[in-house]
């Protein structure tokens, strides 16, 4: 594919939203309204089709963040405390509180737009847990994206969205982010977006660590395989300060198909045991004292629940079972009337299957293919491979400004959710240290960032300039893998095996192998050390050099090439921060064998910044305020 055949398309706008998931939709929804009042343009760019893009593409069976503030049972402060505890003290209270105080509004909008929310007999939301509500969420994303598109429509010509455009690279001029470069995955077009403000909402990162399944099941990651580290790459390369790059998330899910466990643990009150039937949360409770004060709070932080389970496996006590059959038996046991008990049984069965069919259909297939009926048979659970997802129980992302009225001075620099680079904003999985946003919180954070970004545009009305020579340079860079392939393909008769290049697929496998074996992946029980990390970092430098030799034979491979460049940078920031933090704080996510305990002087944020002009990484601590 000849790169000189590519047309250059330049799009000028005021606010540029990158991504199409929950945070992007929240941003488009909110920004359109304020843009309309202030004569600003809003443009959204998505690599997929908005109605099924992002982590909610498949649907969800619950909304994991709803406070119900109007009922007076929960407070914003309660939520902040819960999040801090779950992350072993490492969270930005200002950011978490900002999302929490607005999130109910988003959920109420979802319901009005058409999302079916479970209700009890009095018409109240059915709670799955203290912060979670149950939904019939197969079409959650369709509904939310429709609202976002309709909001953009209200802007008339000043509102637009582009689908199937992959964003590769940020465009920075002096100290300000002024645009993004990418390409169409459907036609031979290079895209350059110029904007006054850019909001990065391109999701978390998957397939950086080697997954447990490496055949067809490679795609069955818990978080979607199409979330490939684009968010982190964009902010890192723009020179923004990053935070919590060490805080990966290792979810415990139903084994292999990775079906959700939340409804089973919270709604059905199910227990998990080792193969001998022992409840390790009880038998190993003593271990939790070592991780006090966080080890002794209730609920036990997710990473410590993982840790106790991993100990069982270490000692050969697997498999680990979720006792769905006992949970259902107990829920029905209290019903004396036989007919009523039967009805309840039917209801529970339907709820159990819906939980999977709404959000992880493969798990339903897994049950059906193993002839598992949850009311009769327990199911195996397991720790997945590590992911980067600050909207859940990970925390990696850009270091952003908090809100004027909640943030301490050190955390406030003019606009909510603006990174340390002027004009560059982040939300959802792109912003760090504000975990447990989930779908509703990500949408809400997108709204917060969207409004703030419009304020930035209004305050900075001057035109944005990008030199023609810079545009040409970006075009060469973005289309680079196509040129490499074009130049060398004739040398060997195998399209994939050629000494002059590497295809993105093998590049990804190489990255996964390094990360798994040196950075504490699943196959080594999530254990790592300084010596291993340094070796891993050394291997990543070869990968960085080889990334210039990524080759793409078509647009799809060009996208895969860039996805893996993005993954590589997320991986490097991860290893560097793992090395920097000389302690073990989240033992169920990763364990530093050379620093096996939690240390008081590390109760700080571990931040980093890549300097685009010198190419140097700087690591530093920031206090928890």
């Amino acid at each position, binding site marked *: 594919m000849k790169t000189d055949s590519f047309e250059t398309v330049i799009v000028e706008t005021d606010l540029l939203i990158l991504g199409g998931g929950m945070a992007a939709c929240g941003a488009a929804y909110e920004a359109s309204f304020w843009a309309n009042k202030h004569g600003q343009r809003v443009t959204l760019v998505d690599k997929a089709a908005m109605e099924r893009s992002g982590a909610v593409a498949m649907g969800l069976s619950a909304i994991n963040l709803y406070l119900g503030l109007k009922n007076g049972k929960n407070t914003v402060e309660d939520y902040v405390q819960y999040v801090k505890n779950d992350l072993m003290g490492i969270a930005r209270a200002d950011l978490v509180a900002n999302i929490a105080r607005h999130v109910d*509004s988003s959920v109420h909008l979802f319901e009005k737009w058409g999302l079916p929310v479970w209700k009890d007999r009095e018409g109240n939301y059915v709670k799955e847990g203290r912060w979670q509500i149950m939904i019939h969420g197969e079409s959650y994303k369709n509904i939310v994206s429709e609202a976002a598109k309709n909001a953009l429509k209200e802007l008339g010509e000043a509102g637009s969205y582009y689908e199937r455009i992959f964003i590769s690279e940020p465009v920075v001029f002096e100290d300000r982010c002024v645009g993004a470069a990418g390409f169409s995955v459907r036609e031979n077009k290079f895209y350059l977006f110029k904007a006054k403000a850019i909001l990065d909402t391109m999701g978390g990162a998957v397939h950086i660590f080697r997954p447990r399944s490496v055949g067809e099941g490679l795609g069955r990651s818990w978080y979607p395989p199409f979330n490939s580290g684009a968010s982190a790459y964009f902010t890192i390369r723009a020179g923004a300060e990053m935070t919590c790059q060490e805080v990966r998330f290792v979810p415990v899910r139903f084994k292999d198909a990775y079906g959700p466990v939340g409804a089973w643990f919270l709604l059905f009150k199910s227990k998990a045991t080792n193969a001998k039937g022992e409840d390790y949360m009880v038998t190993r409770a003593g271990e939790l004292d070592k991780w006090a004060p966080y080890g002794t709070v209730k609920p036990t932080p997710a990473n410590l629940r993982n840790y106790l389970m991993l100990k069982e496996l270490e000692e050969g006590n697997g498999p680990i079972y979720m006792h769905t059959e006992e949970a259902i038996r107990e829920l029905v046991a209290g019903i004396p009337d036989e007919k009523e008990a039967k009805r309840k049984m039917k209801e529970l069965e339907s709820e159990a299957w819906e939980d999977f069919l709404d959000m992880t259909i493969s798990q339903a*297939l897994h049950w*059906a293919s193993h*002839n598992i009926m949850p009311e009769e048979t327990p199911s195996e659970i397991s720790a997945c491979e590590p992911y980067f997802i600050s909207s859940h129980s990970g925390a990696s992302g850009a270091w952003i400004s908090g809100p004027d009225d909640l943030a301490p001075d050190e955390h406030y620099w003019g606009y909510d959710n603006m990174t340390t680079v002027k004009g560059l904003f982040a939300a959802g999985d792109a912003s760090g240290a504000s975990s447990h946003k989930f779908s509703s919180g990500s949408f809400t954070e997108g709204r917060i960032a969207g409004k703030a970004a419009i304020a930035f545009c209004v305050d900075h009305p001057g035109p944005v300039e990008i030199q023609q020579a810079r545009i040409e340079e970006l075009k060469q860079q973005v289309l680079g893998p196509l040129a490499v392939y074009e130049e060398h393909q004739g040398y060997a008769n195998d399209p994939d095996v050629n000494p002059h290049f590497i295809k993105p697929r093998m590049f990804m496998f190489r990255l996964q192998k390094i990360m798994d074996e040196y950075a504490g992946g699943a196959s080594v029980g999530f254990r790592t050390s300084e010596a291993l990390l340094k070796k891993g970092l050394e291997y990543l430098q070869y990968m960085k050099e080889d990334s210039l030799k990524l080759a793409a034979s078509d647009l799809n491979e060009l996208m895969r090439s860039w996805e893996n460049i993005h993954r590589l940078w997320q991986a490097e920031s991860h290893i560097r921060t793992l090395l920097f933090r000389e302690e073990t704080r989240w033992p169920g996510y990763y364990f530093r064998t050379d620093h096996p305990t939690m240390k008081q002087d590390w109760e700080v944020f571990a931040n980093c910044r890549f300097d685009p002009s010198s190419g140097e990484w700087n690591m530093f601590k920031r206090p928890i305020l």
Partner: protein
Amino acid sequence: MTRADIKLILNFRPLPIYRNFAKIIYYVCDCQKLSFHMPSFVITEKCDGCRALDRTACQYICPNDLMVLDRETGKAFNRAVDMCWECYSCVKICPTQAIEVRGYADFMPLGAVVQPLRSSGTIMWAVRFRNRMVKRFKFPIRTTPEGSIVPDAGFSTGTEDLKAPVLRTEPESLER
């Protein structure tokens, strides 16, 4: 799948609005062939490449850009099954029900089928076990007509201040 099973499926209402009567018959006939299919795959006979539509539905929707239309055969295919999340977006959108999912062969025994019928307000699932037991579930998916969303949903916004920590539709929408 027996005739009685098919009858049961058809008794669920409403069926997808875009499917006309002829297509229902087509579906009934094809259910009989719903045998042991093997991540998302396209049934050659049923795929018409969305000839009558302005775009290939599965190619339009796949979040990972896996579905492609083979111009020569006029049929769609999944170009990288091991990058497939099994999200079923293609299965749900396919106008001819030509796409099914065979569980990842590296950890699922053969023989199970999980197939949806998605309409405007509900989704109906047929789950067939390896041992041939069949379970059916029906869930609501949306309470409003598609395309009808009004962004503000009747709420008004309590401020004009671009710098105030009040979002669109607040404070009304906080109260519901």
